[in-house]
């Protein structure tokens, strides 16, 4: 070789220097430093998920309704499984060999169907008992591929409000696809507020990275926990319900079918929302959920069905105050206008019956005593006004008032499965009667019958709008969200299009319905309280009519508006009115007056489900 210059040597030395530096660093990394030194069969770094506690749920008075309890799932990473002492494993889990075989068979079939991964953890056995957990934890090191994952389950402080709260269930494949926050085995809220406010309640999962040895035992934090992400607990929420009132409502409705919705008219806040029959929300927690859910689902009384927002009933006579208000607004009558009633409404051979009473009556008395003829007159006058040339136009005019009161469409409450009810439009009758129909054809709508369908919450809201004299706020169940605001739509006032003064005679009539000599709702009288109400009897083609009552109190600046439906309860005055009045009394006076204890007793003990014979 020729004479090699010094500069060539320098360059070669630079190359060698970097080479040696790498050799040393690699030696440290691969051979010397124990934090990276692991056997070939092992994962060096393990991700541990910390599931956050779900947000707590409080009632409007700050009483805790829903909290959390610890729960442990046995997880498996199929790839890491080794042969093991299955008898000992069964003893720890307190299951039989056959059960274990089933569990493994299930795991293998899920693997085959690609529902779970070989390399990622999935649930092997849900919800270990405290005893199982304690026993297993000590032995877990012997079973490669298994570990225990801590999660939280819901804990319900009251056996009430199941329909409001909803429940928690495991996410399905479609949920995971929709939202990549979830991984297989996660829980999410289903139904009720758990579902509506899932994104607030769920919090954020945390991740901890640890170094593990061959046996899967933790050997300390990876990089001193620098890469860890702490879990963020879910946000607490406060509901608008009064849990004591809710509980009382569910007690009053026991052994009955129906619904109660109570609102605060000045805000639209739902004070109580009862669907009967009800069930204990704890039934749908944890391991027993699947069995209980199947049983509830099979129950012929449909306890899972939330009648308060999904049940569609004809409004019956409770519709009359609204008819009166529409008539006044359209100027087709004054409060002093009187109509004859001879046992009903007669036009030629057409007859719509009424109970026997003196006549003629003015508007107030007609409301108080529920005269069918009176409101049939108003209804026809509104539709057949000179300013509307066709019956279709007149009908649409009338219908739009109902829509303005929140009927016929979803109100937009914070429940996902709200029913919209049904208000027919003129097209509907055009099709039905081949365009030849008149106000008389559909006059049964005037008294809340015919094709009309309304939900209890729509009726309560309508009643609140009357109590407010012309406006309402969209009913809602959320009062506060921790460090966040509730949706703005619940703060927006919605007008009904009827002037304030037109409500005065309506409210008088509703007051007289309770307090008048011949009023229909005498059982709703509460001492020293100006409660205004209206009974109704919803026709039921399948059996005994439904008992309906709506009310608000006090008359000026009402604090509560309520609608009660008792299926097969007969007259509104028999069941719905006393139950509604007890709810109002309980909410406003905190206790039931001694003179009304007998009513309370009768309502609590009443059984409309199990049949007299």
């Amino acid at each position, binding site marked *: *070789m*020729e004479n*090699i*210059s010094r*500069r*060539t040597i*320098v*360059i*070669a030395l*630079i*190359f*060698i220097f*970097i*080479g040696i*530096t*790498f*050799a040393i*660093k*690699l*030696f440290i*990394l*691969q*051979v010397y*430093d124990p*934090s*990276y*030194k*692991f*056997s*070939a*069969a*092992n*994962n*060096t*770094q393990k991700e541990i998920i910390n599931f956050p506690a779900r947000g707590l749920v409080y009632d409007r008075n700050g009483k805790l309704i829903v909290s959390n309890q610890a729960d442990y799932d046995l997880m498996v990473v199929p790839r890491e499984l080794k042969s093991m002492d299955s008898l000992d494993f069964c003893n720890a889990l307190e299951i039989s060999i056959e059960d274990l075989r089933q569990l493994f068979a299930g795991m293998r079939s899920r693997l085959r169907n690609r529902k779970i*991964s*070989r*390399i990622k953890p999935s649930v092997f056995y849900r919800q270990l008992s405290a005893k199982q957990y304690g026993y297993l934890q000590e032995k877990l090191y012997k079973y490669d591929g298994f570990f225990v994952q801590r999660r939280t389950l819901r804990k319900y402080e009251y056996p009430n409000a199941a329909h409001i709260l909803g429940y928690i269930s495991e996410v399905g494949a479609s949920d995971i696809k929709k939202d990549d926050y979830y991984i297989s085995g996660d829980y999410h809220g289903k139904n009720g507020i758990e579902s509506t406010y899932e994104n607030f309640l769920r919090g954020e999962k945390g991740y901890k990275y640890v170094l593990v040895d061959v046996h899967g035992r933790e050997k300390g934090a990876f*990089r001193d926990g620098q*890469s860890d992400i702490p879990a963020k607990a879910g946000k607490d929420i406060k509901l608008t319900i009064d849990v004591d009132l809710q509980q009382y409502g569910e007690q009053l409705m026991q052994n009955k079918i129906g619904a109660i919705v109570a609102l605060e008219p000045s805000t639209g806040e739902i004070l109580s929302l009862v669907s009967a029959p009800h069930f204990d929300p704890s039934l749908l927690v944890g391991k027993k959920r699947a069995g209980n859910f199947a049983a509830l689902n099979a129950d012929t009384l449909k306890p899972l069905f939330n009648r308060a927002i999904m049940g569609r009933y004809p409004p019956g006579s409770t519709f009359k105050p609204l008819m009166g208000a529409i008539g006044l607004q359209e100027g087709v009558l004054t409060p002093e206008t009187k109509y004859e009633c001879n046992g009903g409404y007669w036009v030629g051979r057409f007859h719509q019956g009424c109970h026997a009473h003196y006549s003629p009556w003015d508007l107030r008395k007609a409301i108080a005593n529920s005269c069918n003829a009176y409101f049939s007159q108003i209804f026809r006058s509104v539709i057949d006004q000179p300013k509307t040339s066709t019956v279709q136009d007149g009908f649409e005019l009338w219908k739009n008032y109902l829509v303005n009161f929140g009927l016929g469409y979803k109100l937009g409450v914070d429940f996902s499965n709200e029913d919209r009810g049904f208000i027919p439009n003129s097209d509907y009758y055009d099709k039905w009667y081949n365009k030849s129909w008149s106000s008389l054809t559909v006059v049964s709508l005037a008294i809340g019958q015919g094709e009309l369908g309304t939900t209890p919450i729509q009726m309560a809201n309508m009643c609140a709008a009357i109590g407010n004299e012309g406006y309402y706020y969209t009913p809602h169940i959320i009062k506060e969200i921790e460090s966040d605001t509730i949706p703005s739509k619940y703060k927006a006032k919605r007008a009904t299009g009827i002037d304030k003064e037109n409500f005065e005679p309506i409210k008088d009539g509703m007051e007289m319905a309770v307090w008048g000599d011949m009023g229909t709702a005498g059982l709703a009288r509460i001492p020293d309280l100006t409660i205004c109400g209206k009974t109704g009897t919803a026709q039921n083609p399948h059996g005994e009519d439904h008992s309906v009552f709506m009310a608000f109190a006090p008359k000026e600046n009402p604090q509560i508006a309520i609608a009660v439906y008792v299926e097969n309860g007969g007259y509104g005055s028999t069941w719905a009115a006393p139950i509604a009045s007890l709810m109002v009394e309980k909410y406003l006076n905190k206790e039931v007056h001694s003179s009304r204890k007998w009513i309370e007793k009768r309502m609590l003990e009443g059984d409309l489900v199990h049949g007299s014979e």
Partner: protein
Amino acid sequence: MVQNNYNKKVDWVTIVIYAILVLFGWINIYAANYNPENPVFFDMGMEYAKQLIWISASMVLIWVIFMTDSKFYVAFSNILYGVAVFLLFSVIFLGKEINGAKSWFELGPIRFQPAELAKIATALTLARMMSRHDFTFKKFKNLASIIAIWALPVLCIFLQNDTGSALVFFVFILPFYREGLPGSILVFGLMGAIVSVLTLVYPPYSVLALIIVGALVALFVKTDKKITGIALMYGVGAFAIVLGLFYIVGLNLRWELFMLVGILAFSIVVLIKGFSKKIKAVVPIAIFMWGAVVFTFSSSYFVNDVLSEYQRNRVYVLLGFKDDPLGAGYNVNQSKIAIGSGGFSGKGYLQGTQTKFDFVPEQSTDFIFCTVGEEWGYLGTLTVVILFVFLMIRLIFLAEKQHSSFSRIYGYCVASIFFYHFTINIGMTIGLAPVIGIPLPFFSYGGSSLWGFTTLLFIFLKLDTNRSELIR
């Protein structure tokens, strides 16, 4: 007979190293793509299959290169350079943006990065320029034209926002140094780069310590043991006394301040002793030392105190210390785990777990070395390091054998480019260098880079077959 003769002239050792690297690279790309969840022996859609096609194409490329006359590379270097710069310039406007850099042309299934061509063309053109018999760095005209040739592609690549590829060109300082660039520029260049990177990664006191070591080495070489020893004694003494005083008083100040006192004492002693013994070298050493100290503090001050959090992050991202939403160094972290988990002898071929399942991003391209580390262990990584160092040294020694200075300079350029990629790529996977996404020669998946490196290397091997001739 002619064929036989030719075989003797070709440097088979280099070709064997090349073949080993390419083959080993492919084996690891296969492993990085291998999915134990769904073990398929061979899938034409996978990266390893495509890489196999590109390797085959490289064979053709090599044949073409060997068939071409050596004179061609000299004669056409300027044209090639012109084409490369033109492509570099047009890719800024017409290129496809990948990972934030607009540096690729895309023609149907074929992707091409003009920077690969630019490396080869610039190396050839620089070699031609510097091989002129009257070339010297002392002439301003020569220096200016060298800088111009060098700066044009660098500028274009910076404009493409492809910092990693642009920095490659700085490594030409090595062939410049070989051809007579003053050594001090090399030293200053290297130190500047090292110090500025280190200040951003490590606390200032560790950089100060490095500067002190540098000064001690320089003193030892340029003066004598005695001065070095005395100066060190005073320096350490001053450091210890000040530290002790503050400890007794109970004041806790930053380490750097005590070290500054030590450096001050050290440099004063060096200067006094140097002047009394009439050793001129002490002046540049002191100046260099204080220059480095000031540079360290000012860059540290600038980054930590002048820049806003947002700007600071931008600097880190630019330098590659921060590159993804999971926080600074996620890639490096994952890649270190993967390499570290390989242990001494590795987990065994296809047995890796960290380099699959997307723990390590860019597994088969920029982070292919992780697969080597995990599955082949220290034995595998050390082999790769040795092979590369051997290849680079082999290349410069081959270069020294060239009769034609064009071939020699080009050889140095080739070795230096490999050196840059080797240093940055492996350095990045083991956390010693910033995360700059550049491939490991012959290893990383991708046709563009494989062909680029193959061409680079084999042009030199072709020139080497005419080593005793004067090529012009």
